[in-house]
């Protein structure tokens, strides 16, 4: 019960902040760009030798993923930062923790808020892709399974990044550093992804492997996104529980 109250409190804190508009607008912006991209270049892209044998839905996901694998982690980093920035800005954390509430639950509520917002963003992204395909009148029937797989892999794959950024944002008193670390990590994610061994251990690279395609190892986000997500969450809980608030 205490956890739900804390979570509700977290949602209330974000009521007038920009986390909601960002979460809702980000997939619409990315989807809009993919729509324009395919509206102009559909015939050209379908004619490329590299895209031979791809359905229109696969092509849409390929083109969209090229932006989304950067956009999603960046926005999640910003959301994790904003959730903690509110506390550091107003010194609210020490007020909350001075009350008889469990530190672990406070941390968990913040983590859950970032996870819920990220999941909403990923689900909206799936819907936007669906609408883009319908608006572009693809000749093939809607590939629900493909979009569902894509969204599900992302929800699992993003866990590691959420846990890491929540840990960094909560752990470093200067939240700007947490933000910068996240941005640098995301900007280098494609480098990390060139080595599967390294990509498994780097949360910033997990989202790259969420595109449902036989050439891409989707086990990385499922196995390592989930396990590293849980591991970083656990480390965060232990760390936050011991952290002195003064």
């Amino acid at each position, binding site marked *: 019960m205490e956890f739900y109250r804390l979570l509700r409190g977290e949602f209330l804190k974000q009521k007038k902040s920009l986390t909601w508009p960002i979460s809702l607008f980000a997939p619409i912006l990315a989807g809009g760009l993919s729509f324009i991209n395919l509206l102009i270049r559909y015939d050209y892209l379908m004619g490329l030798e590299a895209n031979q044998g791809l359905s229109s839905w696969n092509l849409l996901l390929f083109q969209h993923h090229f932006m989304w694998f*950067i956009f999603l982690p960046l926005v999640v980093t910003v959301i994790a930062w904003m959730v903690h920035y509110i506390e550091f800005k107003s010194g609210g954390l020490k007020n909350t923790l001075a009350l008889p509430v469990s530190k672990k639950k406070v941390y968990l509520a913040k983590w859950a808020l970032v996870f819920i917002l990220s999941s909403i963003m990923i689900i909206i992204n799936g819907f936007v892709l669906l609408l883009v395909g319908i608006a572009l009148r693809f000749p093939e029937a809607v590939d629900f399974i493909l979009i569902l797989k894509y969204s599900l892999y992302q929800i699992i794959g993003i866990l590691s990044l959420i846990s890491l950024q929540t840990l960094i944002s909560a752990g470093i008193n200067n939240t700007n550093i947490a933000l910068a670390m996240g941005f640098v990590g995301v900007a280098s994610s494609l*480098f990390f992804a060139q080595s599967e061994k390294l990509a498994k251990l780097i949360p910033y690279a997990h989202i790259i492997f969420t595109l449902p395609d036989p050439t891409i190892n989707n086990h990385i986000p499922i196995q390592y996104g989930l396990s590293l997500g849980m591991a970083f969450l656990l480390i965060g809980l232990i760390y936050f529980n011991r952290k002195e608030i003064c």
Partner: protein
Amino acid sequence: MRNIFGIEILKLKNSKALWIVTLAPIFMVVQGALNLMRYYDLFTGQGQNVWEQLYSQSMIFYVSILLPILISIVMTLIARIENTNNNWKHYLSLPIDREKVYGIKFIIGCMLIFINILVLISSIIIAGKILGIEESIPYMDLLTKPMATYIAAFPIMAILYVSSIGFAHMAIPLGIGIGLTLPAMIVANSKFWIFYPWTYPIMAALGGDMEIFNKGNIIYIVSPMLLILVFSFGYNRFLKRDII
């Protein structure tokens, strides 16, 4: 004027802005150098210049993603203290010249980005030496291209600075910075690139190496013009700004 400059620098002391602008390019160059090492044969197998390859590998993500995002962070940090708890009203009620405050804050932001570029250049040279590249260092390319990138980034700096001063919430300039960075690579491949300042650093940094980004010198004319235009717009708004 010196006082304002000193105070503004002091405000940034705890923001770790200097650390951010210094470490970020080092990290990108390390990534680029490691990537070059991994695919050394692929990148240099046809007799390509190794320095050029190291430069391209270090620059491609730096210039298209990291630099514009770093500019967003730096410009946001510049106005952080004043935007927190609406401290502008205290600051602007003091007997100081608004013109100087506005100008100095921007100069400091630009200086931090300049440091970022200098660290990038030094890191590439050091990385090349560590890798043991035998060819002579192409100083002209390694110095001029990042400097040209800096000039090409003027409009981004101005737009994000004006947004940081204009909006009290830090997420807005950050959101603008990130949101406009993403389509840059796509727009850079289109004929509309000139209308999109986020493509200018890409053209300036990668123009010589990649045919598609070769767009001539028009950027260096448009870029300062846009800087003056956007900065003047923000400046006028700032001068007319209500204290309360």
